[in-house]
């Protein structure tokens, strides 16, 4: 008698937890909005404009995923996060996906239980320093005070770099990138270190950019990638293939402008047809319809268009493609094929 009662209770609980474990895709669809973890503000990558609309490189990846899943790139709720809170927000379910210029590392992948998406920006850590300091190499930085953002890989790389070269430094910590820059400009530290992309934009925004130089040494690998939490492989696949689709679209020459010409009907190029969903139905594998990639690209174009509109040579950040060029033009951006 007692045992049956316990069994019923157990069954009810099991059922309840099964009901509660709805997949992320279903949750997002039911909610009608994608929760995307971004930074509280990093020039070119994610920041609100004067009307409160979020803009930037990371932001466009969020919108592309929302477009693929929900059919509308505007259906995104941006969850601003600091370096320390980003993973907690993702893991606690406050965010469905994270695009927060985050470096993929083994401990984050395994210990923090994240699954990283394909790398969407290859970066590396450098140093910005005042020209009148006379220092021209990072090896001369012994004893320097260094402005640094806490909770980031740059903080750890810095410690590694200085200890492996048997040099001392004095960290000047801050919570956000903006505070670090403020510390550097008000001479609270000798040098400012972060990813080279951010250094370039920081330098461009200084009062007199020519009075500052970026030291030639790049002391780390920083593959920046989006991430989702462990435990929902279908959701991982969706996010992963949206990023891949944007990169592949550039390789195939599919842009926002010519997308509909290419995808109106099946053409001669089977790769484009698969991307467009006019040949086979790749979307069915990830629980979406055949048009998923079309919608993702239709949001803000392919990888190159997103890059150029947010951080590329014509923007104030003026970043070159460099490593981030497609493998066809000498970079290392190389996405697995859709087939």
């Amino acid at each position, binding site marked *: 008698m007692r045992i049956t009662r316990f069994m019923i209770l157990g069954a009810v609980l099991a059922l309840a937890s099964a009901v509660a474990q709805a997949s992320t895709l279903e949750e997002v669809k039911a909610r009608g909005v994608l929760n995307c973890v971004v930074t*509280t*503000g990093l020039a070119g990558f994610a920041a609100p404009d004067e009307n409160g609309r979020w803009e930037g490189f990371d932001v466009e990846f969020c919108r592309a995923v929302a477009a693929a899943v929900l059919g509308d790139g505007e259906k995104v709720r941006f969850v*601003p*996060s600091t370096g320390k809170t980003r993973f907690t*927000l993702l893991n606690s379910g406050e965010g469905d996906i994270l695009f927060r210029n985050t470096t993929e590392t083994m401990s984050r992948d395994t210990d923090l239980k994240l699954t990283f998406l394909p790398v969407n920006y290859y970066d590396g850590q450098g140093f910005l320093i005042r020209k009148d300091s006379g220092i021209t190499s990072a090896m001369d930085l012994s004893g320097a005070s260094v402005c640094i953002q806490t909770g980031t890989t740059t903080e750890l790389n810095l410690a590694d770099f200085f200890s492996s070269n048997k040099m001392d430094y004095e960290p000047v910590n801050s919570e956000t990138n*903006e505070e670090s820059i*403020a510390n550097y400009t008000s001479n609270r530290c000798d040098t400012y270190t972060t990813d080279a992309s951010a250094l370039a*934009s920081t330098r461009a925004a200084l009062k007199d950019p020519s009075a500052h130089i970026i030291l030639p040494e790049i002391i780390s690998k920083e593959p920046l990638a989006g991430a989702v939490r462990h435990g929902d492989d279908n959701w991982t696949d969706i996010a992963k293939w949206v990023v891949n689709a944007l990169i592949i679209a550039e390789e195939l020459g599919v842009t926002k402008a010519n997308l509909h010409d290419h995808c109106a009907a099946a053409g001669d190029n089977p790769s484009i047809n698969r991307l467009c969903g006019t040949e086979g139905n790749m979307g069915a594998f990830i629980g979406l319809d055949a048009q998923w990639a079309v919608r993702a690209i239709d949001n803000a174009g392919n990888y190159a268009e997103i890059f150029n509109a947010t951080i590329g040579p014509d*923007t104030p*950040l003026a970043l070159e493609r460099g490593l981030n060029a497609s493998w066809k033009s000498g970079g290392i951006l190389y996405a697995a094929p859709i087939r």
Partner: protein
Amino acid sequence: MKPISYKIGEHPDLPPPASVTGPLAWVRNNLFSSPTNVVMTLVSVWLLFELIPPMLNWMLFDAAFSGENRDACRAQAGGACWAFIAERFRLFTYGFYPAEERWRVNLAFVLLLLALVPVLYDRLPLRKYGLYYSMVFPLIAGWLLLGGWGLAPVDTDQFGGFMLTLVIGVTGIAFSLPIGILLAMGRQSSLPVIRLVCVGFIEFIRGVPLITLLFVASTMLNYFLPKGTVFDLLLRVLIMVTLFASAYMAEVIRGGLQAIPKGQVEAAEAIGMKYWQSMRLVVLPQALKISIPGIVNTFIGLYKDTTLVIIIGLLDPLGIGRSSLADTKWTGLHNEVYLFVAIFFFISCFSMSRYSLYLEKKLQTEHDH
């Protein structure tokens, strides 16, 4: 000139000699009365001379008030670039609140001011009815800001800027005072259960930093609640901030309660008052009066603590300022942003502390020790 003569006893009082009255004497008495004072005065004047003109120059005379971006500002003037703040002013004020619904925020703000009048000034005619309005104001404000019943719904994650500060600050202030009074009374209660609960609550909350509570509210709760539970982040923050302020408020008010001599309670009991009557009519009015500086201090602390919400991803004015600085058009204009936000907080906090002084003066009674 013929000397004027007076009869004995009719000579009018002469004005005090010029050396003890008038601005010159004031200057001599207050600024140059001793060698130390002379030195300090000179140093201060020099400091002001060094600081004020460049500051005014930066803020006003050499500042740019219009421009498309930072470079346009820099081209016009070498000082502050207020065009940045002007362009972002609406973002600073309303956060991400939809543009076409912003009149609701404005209306709620005007209604808030109206609701404050009867609370703050007791000489208002028909004050009783005004207070009824003040009591329903939170409902009206909630409806206006959140929508529903005929208004377009607005999610709380679109709240931001000054409006967010006011929502958190006003809610925290309005609810922490009554909860704090109850907790303070509970802590002194003769019923052990009530006393233990109140002491436990107060000591627990005071033992934990606000930022930890906010963290718990924003992320930990989601681990405990069943997956998929939607529990509004702002609501969680409001509850945490209110509880936090209540615990501090309780201790401030306990200080006031303990300053009331036991004879007062005994006298109230002697004329047949019950516990609540004696509290309401005898003890609390006196205790609260003594506690005013402490209460307002807690209010101001709470109000400024609202900037901590950036840690959990809500963008208060400081957060909006920081993320605005990441706009490639405007990067590098830290001073303008921080100064602007500082002025906003100074105005709010200074008026609170002025009001508390006014209240203290008004409630000043002869038999104060």
